[in-house]
């Protein structure tokens, strides 16, 4: 299918040039000496506490990067990013759990990290599992590592690493990835630079460690348009691109050819509350991020499902539907957000099952239409007109139903009023989603790791605890 484009080739070129100007003329705040030396040796210059990147160096580093990395699950599932497929993954790092049945929220624990991984493992349209919740029953220093540790045994799908902040976390995450068989170059880790254009010492050291270990950098600049980046979406995207490319330059100097995913997490300011905006501009920004990333040949990962809503209501459905469908139609390689609520602060098990169904519908949109002779079906029309004058009994009908002309949904309510009110007791989609989540958590069994693998993960976490917790 032809991808949706909001920007012309000239406009993308202008955004590219603006990005290079920001990197070269404005620069990025950067004070970590070891990495500064690496950057200046490669031709970067210093302007006070900012480092300026020459355009040629930026373009060389982009050319060097492995822009189509592969991540693998222990079930053998392989996600080839940038190969034309759309992969969905869940929200990472939610603070609270929304209990859809009671309409209440609670603080997430380690058990929620486990349960979320297990539920996502069962959802066919969730292709990659990211540690979902931030458990508050572990020390803050170990939170990211515990998220990864508890996710690995509870899914066989490819696991994306947690968002990290420190070099020490990189080392332990790489060790844990090796335990389940994922070579380090199939492990993705994400780090968020501070917007605007600031790479703190911890962040610089962490990127250095990631590059040296050959980890796929899926860094997540997360500017907020109107607060930490320009109010204009294209201006914010230029800044976001400069932020992610500055990290890429370091990684590619240190380890030429290491994998990268071009990620965008631009949010816009809710100007009346200071929170993050969940409206349709998010989808627009994500779609434009895809277009800009594809211009460089990257595989692109952006926000998908996203809303400000606090319940499974109408606002929730329309915001997340638009915010995911628009970048999907723009050609996104990965969309995040399965299970997300309240602009990423909260997640819910019922939401995960709803998003699985929405993802299925979006994948159907991405498949588009075919207009070959088989699909135009002139002979079938001829046969029907000569015969029964309906298409119900045609082999062609069943063939294409089975081939997925309609992406059949499981949770959406599609019965008559009578059936709905009578037999089905007025149940709505959200009711089915809650029941489906409960069923999966009750029934779904994930093949466990070997006991020695579990012991090894525990050993790594114990070592991490000795080093990282005061």
């Amino acid at each position, binding site marked *: 299918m032809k991808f949706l484009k909001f920007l012309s080739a000239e406009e993308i070129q202008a955004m590219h040039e603006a990005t290079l100007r920001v990197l070269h003329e404005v620069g990025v705040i950067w004070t970590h000496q070891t990495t500064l030396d690496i950057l200046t040796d490669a031709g970067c210059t210093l302007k006070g506490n900012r480092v300026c990147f020459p355009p040629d160096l930026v373009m060389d580093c982009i050319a060097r990067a492995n822009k189509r990395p592969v991540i693998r699950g222990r079930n053998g599932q392989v996600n080839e990013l940038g190969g034309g497929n759309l992969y969905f993954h869940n929200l990472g790092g939610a603070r609270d759990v929304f209990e859809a049945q009671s309409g209440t929220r609670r603080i997430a624990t380690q058990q929620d990290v486990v349960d979320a991984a297990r539920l996502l493992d069962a959802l066919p349209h969730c292709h990659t599992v990211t540690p979902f919740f931030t458990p508050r029953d572990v020390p*803050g220093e170990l939170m990211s590592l515990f998220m990864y540790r508890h996710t690995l045994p509870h899914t066989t799908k490819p696991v994306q690493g947690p968002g990290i902040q420190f070099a020490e976390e990189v080392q332990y995450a790489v060790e844990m990835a090796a335990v389940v068989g994922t070579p380090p170059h199939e492990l993705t880790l994400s780090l968020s630079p501070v917007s605007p254009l*600031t790479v703190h010492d911890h962040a610089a050291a962490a990127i250095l460690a990631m590059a040296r270990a050959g980890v796929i950098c899926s860094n997540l600049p997360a500017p907020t348009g109107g*607060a930490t980046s320009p109010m204009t979406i294209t201006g914010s995207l230029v800044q976001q691109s400069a932020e992610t490319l500055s990290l890429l330059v370091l990684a590619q100097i240190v380890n030429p050819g290491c994998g990268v995913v071009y990620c965008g997490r631009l949010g816009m300011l809710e*100007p*009346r509350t200071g929170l993050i905006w969940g409206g349709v501009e998010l989808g627009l920004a994500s779609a434009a991020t895809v277009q800009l990333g594809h211009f460089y040949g990257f595989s692109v990962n952006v926000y998908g499902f996203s809303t400000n809503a606090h319940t499974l209501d109408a606002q929730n459905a329309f915001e997340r539907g638009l915010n995911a469908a628009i970048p999907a139609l723009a050609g996104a390689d990965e969309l995040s957000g399965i299970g997300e609520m309240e602009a990423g602060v909260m997640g819910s098990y019922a939401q995960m099952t709803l998003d699985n169904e929405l993802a299925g519908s979006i994948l159907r949109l991405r498949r588009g239409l075919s207009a070959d002779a088989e699909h135009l079906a002139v002979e079938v029309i001829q046969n029907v007109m000569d015969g029964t004058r309906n298409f119900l009994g045609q082999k062609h009908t069943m063939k294409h139903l089975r081939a997925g002309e309609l992406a059949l949904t499981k949770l959406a309510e599609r019965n008559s009023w009578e059936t709905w009110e009578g037999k089905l007791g007025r149940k709505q989609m959200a009711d089915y989603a809650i029941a489906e989540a409960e069923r999966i958590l009750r029934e779904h069994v994930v093949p466990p790791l070997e006991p020695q693998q579990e012991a090894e993960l525990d050993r790594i976490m114990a070592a991490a605890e000795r080093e990282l917790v005061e």
Partner: protein
Amino acid sequence: MHEELYKQMAQSIIDGEKETAIELAQKSIELGIPPLDAITNGFVVGVNYIGDLFGKGEAFLPELVMAGEAMKAAVAVLEPELLKLGEAREMMGRVVLATVEGDIHEIGKTLVGTMLSAAGFEVTDLGVDQPAEKIIGKALEINAQIIGLSALLTTTMVRQREVIEELDKEGLRPRIKVMVGGAPITREWAEKIKADGTSEDAVGAVQLAKKLVGKE
């Protein structure tokens, strides 16, 4: 007396016109208006107005920031005059602000600082990634009544508790009150770690600070 000028002063804050606010402050000095009157009858009226609108969801956060910046600029012009007269704007209280150790985000904290200054607090902003002992040391040094602790990350919000525990250990509470804030901070969290309060936004933070120093 000078009603028109006071109105213009308030309006310059409401419009977030820093340059105009500075000019009007200078003009008031030339006219011999007591600087405290200019602040109280003019500029403060504007800050309160925009703060109320924001509280009702009718003003935008950027407007609030611009008003706060304009207010700070106008007060900076008038302060030397106050000193000459041996007067001072009624100081609401001294506040130390910091983002906790391990966290490097600060836009929300900076905004709270601006609004507290605009409201008449003396604010010392230590910046980001600040360990407990440094925050407490500064609070003791300047005799602060309030410490404001910011955290953006779920992984670092636990550090807010460490500062509070340290204060308790040193027997410095309730002399020093603690306000906590940041994206992951909820009222339940503030209660759990025995903070003296939290607010979702900068306007609420000013109200809370006033309450904590008994000047509501």
